[in-house]
């Protein structure tokens, strides 16, 4: 089933990658540099990558600026880019929501338009399983088809959903371009910083009293594997859930990280999170409460069938790795 043939149309693959200094982006960069199949690598971002690059070329470009709408297509055409990897810019809801929205949602629009203009053949878009929303009507395992009835919550999650809608539109208008949307489960491993890790390492770890949803995680290495598989696959189209193996109840996860879950009635929790967020003493977005209450576990079988992706790490491995990172930073007692 898994079509591991190398992408047929691009003999010489010239790839452009949006980059930031997250573990996944940096590991992907290393992977690309070590793969001779990519004859040229163009990095787009605002900050120089934290690791030294050998043949990748970094080009400063701020996708939150409207000017990039003009600059990007020219650049892509000039370099003959035929594969574009648009990664996620934010892992956690930013306090400057307006700017984050420009970068995440509007920036994606620039990218898609530029790709259409420059004749890019394959686009890989990073998204997350939060686009399904956490709702009580969710089945235990959300398939890719459940997108569209969602209640994402924080603006960041709304933006991700909007990016996906743009991608769907784009595919309709440009059927010759392959667009793969990779919906990553919550990343959790050493060095990862996202809304979940901030929640798990907060001074108080509130949970919704009486609810204990199952949660799933994805190791950063597996996320990089998934991107490279999407780059290498013979044909990709549509959305893929990229998830780690296994699930655990949220309370068990909290305990495994060495914290104590603090059950709070839902209304109180929302109010508390809202005031703590607006006072700037909490990194947990107030609209994330629903993600602590309902299931939002995704089903990764499509990625397994069509990309051949099977996570190497299970939920316990992710937690172990995450703990290791915390311990090395002295954030938890061993």
């Amino acid at each position, binding site marked *: 089933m898994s079509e591991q043939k190398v992408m047929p149309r691009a003999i010489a693959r010239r790839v452009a990658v949006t980059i930031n200094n997250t573990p996944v982006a940096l590991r992907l960069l290393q992977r690309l540099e070590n793969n001779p199949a990519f004859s040229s690598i163009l990095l787009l971002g605002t900050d120089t990558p934290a690791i030294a690059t050998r043949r990748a070329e970094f080009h400063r470009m701020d996708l939150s600026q409207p000017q990039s709408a003009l600059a990007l297509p020219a650049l892509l055409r000039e370099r003959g880019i035929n594969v574009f990897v648009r990664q996620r810019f934010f892992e956690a809801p930013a306090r400057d929501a307006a700017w984050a929205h420009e970068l995440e949602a509007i920036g994606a629009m620039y990218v898609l338009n530029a790709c259409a203009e420059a004749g890019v053949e394959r686009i890989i878009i990073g998204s997350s399983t939060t686009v399904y929303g956490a709702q009580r009507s969710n089945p235990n395992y959300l398939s890719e088809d459940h997108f569209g009835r969602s209640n994402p919550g924080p603006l960041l999650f709304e933006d991700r959903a909007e990016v996906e809608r743009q991608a769907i539109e784009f595919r309709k208008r440009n059927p010759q371009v392959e667009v793969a949307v990779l919906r990553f489960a919550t990343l959790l491993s050493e060095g990862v910083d996202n809304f979940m890790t901030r929640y798990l390492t907060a001074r108080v770890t509130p949970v919704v009293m009486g*609810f204990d949803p*199952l949660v799933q995680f994805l190791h950063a290495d597996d996320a990089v594997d998934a991107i490279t598989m999407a780059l290498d696959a013979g044909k990709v189209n549509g959305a893929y859930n990229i998830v780690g193996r296994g699930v655990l109840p949220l*309370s*068990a996860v909290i*305990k495994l990280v060495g914290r104590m879950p603090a059950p709070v009635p839902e209304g109180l929790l929302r109010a508390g999170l809202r005031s703590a967020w607006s006072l700037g003493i909490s990194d947990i977005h107030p609209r994330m409460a629903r993600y602590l209450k309902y299931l939002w576990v995704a089903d990764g079988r499509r990625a397994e069938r069509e990309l051949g992706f099977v996570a190497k790490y299970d939920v316990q491995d992710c937690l172990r790795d995450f703990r290791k990172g915390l311990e090395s930073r002295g954030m938890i007692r061993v």
Partner: protein
Amino acid sequence: MAKKGLGSNPFGEAGSASRSAGGKRSKPGKGKPPQKSPAAKTGNKPPPAAKAAGASKPPRPASVPPRTGTPSPKPAAPKAASPAAPSTNKPAPGKAAAKTSSPANKPPPAKSGPPPAKAVPSKPASASGAARPAPAAAAKKPIAAPAGKAVPAPPAKPAAKPASTLPPPLPLKRPKPAATGKVEVVLPSPPPQSAAATPAPPARDGGSFPPVKNKRTPAAKAKKPAPAMDESSIPLDRPLESVLRAVQSAADEARRMEEEIPAPPPAPETPPGSPPAAAGAAMESEAEILIELKPITPDIETSKELLELDHAAEIPEAAALPEATVVQEASGAPVMDGPPPIRPQTGGSPAAALINELQALLTSFPDEVQKLQQRTGGKGLEIGARMLASLRDSLSTLSPQGYSSQWGAMGMSEPGAAMDEFGLDPVYEEKLQPFFDFLYYYYFRAEVSGIEKVPAQGRCMLVVNHSGALPYDAIMLRTAFQNDHPAQRQLRFLVEDSIFYFPVLGPMMSRVGGVRACQENGERLLESGQLISVFPEGLLGMGKLFGERYQLQRFGRGGFIKLALRTGTPIVPAAIVGAEEIHPLVAKLRVGRSLGLPFVPVTFTFPWLGPLGLMPFPAKWRIAFGDPAPLKQYSPADAEDPVLVQRLSMDIRGRVQELLNGLLQSRRSVLAG
């Protein structure tokens, strides 16, 4: 921590008590050991200690052998049983001892006062006349003795034994009770003095109460102090010891023989019952002292101990051969006295009294218990024992510490538990399983027929009638498959959405095997070859009024048929009779909408008795399975044909109703089936 110390103590006492109920008398000087018993009571944690093992190991062997020596069959149960037994004995010995100590000074010297002196004559008596009891006791003691050579202590006891003759009652029921009666009579007189004397010593002992070794040391001390107390005993001390040794060696031999010949003697069981009786008489006088000593005993603990006592009472019955049980019954009169000793312990707490009564009830229906045992192939009692143990555990979870250690902060999960993909938590389920088994075997007395029609492997869907606000039916069905299906298949039940909207209930359901009912979940389960059950009546089934019971409601929109057709799954109809009477719904109040409830149920008990009204009525359950419905001729594409789906749905509904009617016709009463 507390557990260890307490546990060890209890055992020590228990051990000594079981060895020789009468022996304590010899300890009059040591009135303390008896007083310890109070401590034990307060501690009450002996049982837990037993579980903990570890520190309590030494005591355990001692206590366990006496109890279970005969009825080896219930090794699992012994935990509770052994501790319980000791505890029952303890009180008696303690009291007896206390009284005896006083008597020593006074008139009773002939009987118990001078244990040593009497011991000599008594021993011979035991050897000859009461040969049975003595050997039995000896056999027990030796076992206990090996752990720590309580030998000294036991000897003292033998002396007492003759007087109280508690252990012997089994074989020589009548005569011994009489003896005990006499003893009691004698004892009452001394109390005044003893009471005065005893209080002080108890305090000491209680304070000194070290974990394991106390038994021995107290025992040793007991000997010497005792003689001092007893005027006549001093000279006889040595002879007594020698005799005791002889008895012990004989006991050792007996034990060896026992080991060689696995057949266990039935006698051991009875002692617990009788000693308490003897003690019971003494208790009256003692009660005051005891109360003074243990005024602070918390209710929970007492109830715990009581539970164990309960336990003990149950297990001996189970283990004992029919004869033994009969004996117990025969000795009913003394046994009746037995409970009284417990009462003083409880100090009148209502919960304790309740449990007391329960115990009395249990002991008074040995043949009932036996019948049950026969029917469940002996498994039931073990389960009952486990159930009681789990009840006790759940009592211990009342303390915040115990709660968090037992269940985790939310009472739902264990970190690192091996959880399956739908949230079934084996660890959590294992904790609840004893309770489910209790419901299954005892409370609902479920009877299953035709369960073998469900294939041993491969995907399969059960279609069952539904009732009740809480999915007892689903859980009992799951239990039935675990207990009675040849392949012990694991059943995953699809649960009404609305259950998952409530706090606690939803997570709990998924921990014990429930899955939210929707096509996606059903498909995933069936595609992995699992056995699932569906209740197509859904909410309509839950809201059936009492008058509508066993009349199947609309089967949803036929979603289960679509699911079966899409996945090519055979459907097995099943019916549960009894489940629709456990919560007889007389009215539905529509006021619950704002709370997210479809309706607020009104039953004969519910709003009126508060949470207690949620207790299910103990109707007898029958579960029947029909022949698999032939769906093979249909293809997955047929799931899109609404006409066909509706027809198939009605067909399956008819089959379930047919099964239901069959069961109902053969049923004579709701309670007894």
